[in-house]
């Protein structure tokens, strides 16, 4: 009957914070846009000059601000506009993802990629892949519940189970 025609369940739309480097990934994402490639709309892009600029505190702040997943993306090794920024970043990521894993934020919520300025298609694949992985994992309520008590009624409004 009428009710059967409609999917009454609301699909969870994850919020993905994507830290992308200006010279490669951001340009690649732009190319995906100008090429009219269809992609999941869940990523909020934060443009930085280079992945070497990214302090792990940004990732923590992204989760604090309500991100369900974080993507960090930059130039392929050897292609960095500033020569070695992404090499420094890569080493940091090796350490930081292990720390977060140990603390309970596993690799299903934190993703990394190399996307060059010409890889518009790859960008779409990365975004779609990350979005689906995080969608399957679900909203990151466990992190948001670490707020102070006064913010909990706010979260209740958002639909987070306290």
């Amino acid at each position: 009957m009428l009710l059967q025609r409609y999917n009454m369940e609301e699909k969870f739309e994850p919020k993905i914070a994507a830290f992308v480097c200006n010279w490669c990934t951001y340009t690649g994402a732009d190319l995906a846009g100008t090429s009219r490639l269809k992609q999941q709309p869940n990523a909020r892009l934060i443009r930085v000059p280079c992945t070497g600029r990214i302090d792990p505190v940004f990732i923590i702040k992204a989760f604090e601000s309500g991100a369900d997943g974080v993507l960090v993306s930059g130039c392929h090794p050897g292609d960095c506009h500033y020569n070695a920024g992404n090499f420094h970043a890569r080493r940091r990521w090796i350490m930081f993802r292990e720390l977060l894993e140990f603390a309970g934020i596993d690799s299903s919520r934190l993703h990394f990629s190399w996307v060059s300025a010409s890889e518009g298609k790859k960008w779409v694949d990365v975004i779609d892949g990350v979005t689906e992985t995080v969608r399957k994992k679900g909203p990151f309520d466990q992190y948001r519940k670490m707020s102070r008590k006064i913010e909990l009624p706010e979260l209740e409004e958002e639909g987070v189970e306290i």
Partner: protein
Amino acid sequence: MKLMKIEKANLSRLIDQLKKDNHRVIGVTPDGKRFSENFDESLKFMETDTPPTAISFKEHFFPKTEALFHYKNNNGAIDLKEPVIDERKTVVFGARPCDSASLPILSKVFNWDYADDFFNRRVENSIIIGTECNHRDDWCFCNEVGLSQESEKGSDIFMIPVEDAFLVKTISEKGAKFIEEYSGFFESYTGIPPAENKNGHEEKKFDYDNVKKWLDSHFDHGFWDEAGETCLSCGQCAFVCPTCHCFDIVDEQCGTCSGVRAKNWDACQFSLFTKHASGHNPRDSREKRYRQRISHKFKYYNDKFSEILCTGCGRCSRGCPVSIDILELVEEIDHLAHSNAG
């Protein structure tokens, strides 16, 4: 005043009843470190024969972080929201004189130029069940700062351990009402009243009046260069102390639209504590900061409010990462004062 008694078994039952009546019951945790709702159900801490908790109970009256209000940007207008208040009455068990006395001492500064409702509301809504203290070690000096192991200052009800029970003294009106409300758990006591001033004969570790006089006139003494020399400027002494009360007010935003104005513990030992917006920092060395700590506790607060800002609990000294002992320093000042006079 009529002395009452409560059997240990009845005390446990009283606590159960208080929880059923939606009270917030606070006691000492099983590891003896802190006061919290997850306290040791065996009530062993009521025997008070161990050192005091590592962290004082002030976090229940003056929390380590407290929201003053929550704000949200609502399309240009700002929505303010009052903090969530726990309306339950609080009953604190196992507070020793060095804990309970901190409340009337703090009340002076929290009602000085401004009535701090955050503090006042919590104190008014609490019953402090003080307990006579059976512990005294080389870090303690409650006797020297106007208190004692049997001091009732700050308590609404005072309990003295005896065999399988506690003698119960009613101290305040609030305490009297509480005992009346739960009279079923208490019985009259007709035995020998407890001895007063048990430790009065002990020699004092230092003479406070002497120390105060020295502090009044030795701001620039070389003693201060050594006193805080090994201090690391962390904030542990101020944070574990029952009477330290400095706080910082911060606006902390989360996301782009909402945030909270919070009142957080601060410590005069932090290197940035007195840094001005101009960049100037009047207390830019740990020697100056440590001089401030001792002077505030033993002189300035007394000058202003006629109270010593210290209950002699020794927590700061036991907890200090580099074992700075405030009692040792005050004893040295006493010694200096004597040799000056002589």
